[in-house]
């Protein structure tokens, strides 16, 4: 996983609540067995018309948002299916940070595992950032994970909260399986105890 430290880029405004993972990447595109290549179908039902041509009204088909690295949205971003293909598709398109008032739990978890930073800020702040984002290339937004601030184009700094362990993993691009493997003796001990108390859970 690529580390996330500081990102300065174009932010795409998506003034919608409940952007679900079926919108982010429709199920018919989940058939790949790889982690990459999903970017071309990110938001496919909005980006492309029935005949396959681009829909010019959709934000990611407009300049400069074709190069957006940040997405601003409203409540409950990433609700619905558990598909990790959603952050994979965002990442593959080039979006490494989503800012919204809140996120659905599984999407929130999945994002951290892939170096996509979900930033929670109050709706009023998201509405301000939405206006900033509408200025496109003239209004780059910075997301600084080290200092835990979002910097508006005006220079105003907005602090955000984040789980310290997740921040650490993201700043260093760490995979957590290796870390968990260091707890193998504790897992062995747990299993021995559980097997004695609840033998029906073993050897099915």
């Amino acid at each position, binding site marked *: 996983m690529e580390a996330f430290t500081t990102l300065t880029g174009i932010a795409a405004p998506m003034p919608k609540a409940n952007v679900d993972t079926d919108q982010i990447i429709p199920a018919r595109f989940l058939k790949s*067995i790889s982690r990459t290549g999903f970017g071309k179908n990110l938001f496919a039902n909005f980006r492309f018309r029935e005949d396959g041509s681009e829909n010019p009204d959709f934000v990611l088909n407009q300049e400069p948002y074709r190069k957006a690295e940040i997405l601003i949205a409203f409540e*409950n971003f990433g609700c619905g299916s*558990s598909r990790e293909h959603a952050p994979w598709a965002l990442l593959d398109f080039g979006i490494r940070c989503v800012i919204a008032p809140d996120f659905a739990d599984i999407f929130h978890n999945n994002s951290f595992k892939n170096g996509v930073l979900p930033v929670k800020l109050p709706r009023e702040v998201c509405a301000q950032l939405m206006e900033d984002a509408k200025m496109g290339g003239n209004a780059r937004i910075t997301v600084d994970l080290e200092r835990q601030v979002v910097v508006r184009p005006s220079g105003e700094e907005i602090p955000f909260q984040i789980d310290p362990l997740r921040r650490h993993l993201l700043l260093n691009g760490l995979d957590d399986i290796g870390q968990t493997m260091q*707890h193998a003796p504790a897992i062995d001990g747990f299993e021995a105890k559980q097997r004695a108390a609840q033998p*029906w859970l073993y050897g099915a």
Partner: protein
Amino acid sequence: MSAQKPRTLFDKIWDAHVVETLPDGTALLYIDLHLTHEVTTPQAFDGLRAAGRKVRRPDATLAVIDHNIATDASRYTGIVDPESRLQVETLEKNVAEFGVPFIPLLDARQGIVHVIGPELGRSLPGMTIVCGDSHTSTHGAMGALAFGIGTSEVEHVLATQTLLQKPAKNMRVAVEGNLAVGCSAKDVTLAIIGKIGTAGGTGHVIEYAGDAIRGLDMAGRMTLCNMSIEGGARAGMVAPDQTTFDYIARTPNGPKGEALDRAIEWWRTLPTDAGAHFDRIVTLAAHEIAPQVTWGTSPEDVLPITAAVPDPEAVEDEARREQFRRKMQYMGLTPGQRLQDLPLDVVFIGSCTNSRIEDIRVAASIARGRKVAEGVRALVVPGSGLVKKQAEAEGLDRILQEAGFEWREAGCSMCLGMNPDKLTPGQRSASTSNRNFEGRQGPGGRTHLVSPATAAASAIAGHLADVRDYQPKDAH
């Protein structure tokens, strides 16, 4: 012995599975059962292979194919779509390489992962259960802590049989009193989501309680827990009771004899203690719940079947009003239109929400002696091969087919538009599945979520219908 603080069902299962607590409060949580399917695992097995890791507990892992496959006879001659075929073959190769127990496509036990776990007796009370699928919440009906995970977490569980988790908050949703005629668990869950909203349960695990919930059979409890995720909750649970134990005793792979007695002894200690703390409590009166139907593109856009389409202009917030207008346009609705006047193209009875034998019995009881309206395509897709076999033994397939319903093979089918069963643009469906998102059942498809009874009645009416006008006809 010191008096322990009263705990919830969730607290007890959580506490029993913490291997270690890290300094920041994150728990290393042990996972008792890991269910897997073809869509969310290929990248996880690749990760194991790349790192030279093994599956730690193959005996606590089970794989099945459900999302990608056709539900007509074509499955017997091989999967047509090359990408679907590759994904299925990849799972077959991975389970062989890593020694993971697997139910093949043409096995009688094949079915939707959330139907077969409980049905086979693999999903049990007090367990932690995960699967790379958000509707894993279904298994909470057994009195388990069950939740969906992403592919990175699938890999983590395969390698370590654990997950790094922060404890959730406790939420109690109580449904008191008796359900009205024509109402089922599906109407209850839709009414709950209508009340709390699609983010109402975010960060929480919901325990469903109250006498209306106690009175539900296991299939009803599974429907209810299944859609917890649509209310934003990571998991939903129902405390295990005699209904649960009797169900498990009938399963092929559940514990038997002395092992079952010993298990029940522990399971009886799991229900929430008197005085345990809930962070949020929501109460509904069962008799106030009418048959429900969604009108929009989020499960929270739900109304009683007797209602009319709402008016976006009544919404104050500009961004929300615009989104509301978009929903109306997508769904092809006019404010004030009666929901019961909406004509249907397709009726889908199936999915991990409503494809169990009990659901099919209800649909057949309404279909008996009636005909599907002209121009409506109606599918009944059993949740598993065992459900299909049982329905056929009861003659339900014959009743449904005589009425004009298609009787299909088990799978996820038209719930999610990734196999051949899809809506075409503009088609309107009444569906017993769980998501009415834009494009969920196929690009441009318009989904109204309903119960199996409402779906069957609507197939016969040719439009969204009030099931109370379509009570079962006498069998004789």
